[in-house]
């Protein structure tokens, strides 16, 4: 790792201030950032840890019924405590491994927006709201391609608000080495319609499968997508799977997610 200054503020305000320095970088659970630093693929002048800020942690249900998760809440805590949204808790419980889940955070995952990460599928599939130190961003506006988000320099996610659906499920098909999603599909049925979000598959990062959403909104059954297919164009191709394979998995896993949602 390159050398850097390390700061561990205890309030959001102090964190924002610390991040205003040139080449400052926020550090949440660090489960992706620290390996990246070890490879010297990033060279921040200052790391600002967000894990000592109490107001960034915790899970609650808002008056409108939305599940609100503090950005620095660990995957393990979401898995254990997000009982109001079982599909989300189940998703959190499948990220990485137990030790990673004890450190990794929802805010860190969403800020990084790895194209194979799980949380982006949940956020987009739930139509979540990403709350930052300065504004609220709808999930549909937030994800802007691989590792790209709507966040500005120095902007900190403080909370993520998930409208709780009637039914939902996430099915993850693991890449055998990294155990990230080779493809993961999050399906959520709301009164206003069904949302289907896919991670791992596309070169553009997490995306919504509009045709499946339409079909499932009129008939929420695995068979409803029988006639649909996903094109291989724009799908990721690597030694773990061709674009065609990933496209195929999107459909298989969507059907399984619908079946699992019940």
């Amino acid at each position, binding site marked *: 790792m390159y050398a*850097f200054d390390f700061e561990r503020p205890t309030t959001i305000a102090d964190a924002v201030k610390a991040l205003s320095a040139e080449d400052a970088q926020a550090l949440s659970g660090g489960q992706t950032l620290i390996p990246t630093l070890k490879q010297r693929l990033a060279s921040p002048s200052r790391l600002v840890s967000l894990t000592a800020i109490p107001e960034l942690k915790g899970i609650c249900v808002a008056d409108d019924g939305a599940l609100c998760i503090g950005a620095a809440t660990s995957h393990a805590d979401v898995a254990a405590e997000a009982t109001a949204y079982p599909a989300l808790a189940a998703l959190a419980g499948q990220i990485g491994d137990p030790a990673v889940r004890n*450190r990794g955070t929802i805010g860190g995952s969403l800020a990084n927006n790895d194209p194979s990460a799980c949380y982006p599928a949940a956020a987009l599939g739930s139509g979540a709201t990403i709350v930052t130190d300065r504004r609220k961003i709808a999930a549909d506006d937030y994800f802007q391609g691989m590792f790209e988000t709507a966040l500005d320099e120095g902007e900190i996610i403080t909370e993520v608000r998930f409208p709780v659906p009637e039914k939902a499920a996430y099915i993850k098909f693991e890449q055998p080495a990294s155990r990230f999603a080779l493809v993961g599909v999050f399906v959520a049925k709301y009164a206003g319609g069904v949302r289907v979000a896919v991670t791992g598959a596309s070169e553009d990062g997490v995306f919504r499968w509009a045709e499946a959403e339409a079909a499932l909104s009129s008939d929420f059954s695995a068979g409803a997508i029988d006639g649909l297919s996903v094109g291989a164009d724009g799908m990721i191709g690597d030694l773990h799977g061709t674009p065609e394979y990933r496209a195929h998995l999107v459909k298989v896993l969507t059907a399984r997610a619908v079946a699992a949602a019940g």
Partner: protein
Amino acid sequence: MTKVSMTVNGKPVSGEVEGRTLLVQFLREGQGLTGTHVGCDTSQCGACVVHVDGKAVKSCTIFAAEAEGAEVTTIEGMANPDGSLSTIQQAFQDHHGLQCGFCTPGMVMSAAALLAENPKPTEAEIRDYLEGNICRCTGYHNIVKAILAASGQDVAVAAE
């Protein structure tokens, strides 16, 4: 350099660290606790697992400064107070749950975390929990058996 203080295996310790000093470096190089190992640089092998405030974490993927004020337990702190092997350690020996010993500290720490959360895990739950601990020697068979045994369950998971 900044000063960091924490409790390691029940003993208060402190030392000067850089921002980039990882907890595992603080433990191995600063405290001479070389039982915690580094087997990869992508946070996957789990040879470095320790407990921080009671939770299993990869000590190669947390900065020493982040453990300020924390209670840290390493493999060196796992034996009984009289120095005898703890139940989990003893089960690993009894069931040949280790060979070269390099992944073993992380395995024991993960096993302890699992049994604290889930005192009677099934074989499938054990295998799932060990997702982040790679062993190249044992094929995991006897590690799983050792953890089952440590939980007080029947270890007849497979023919001898």
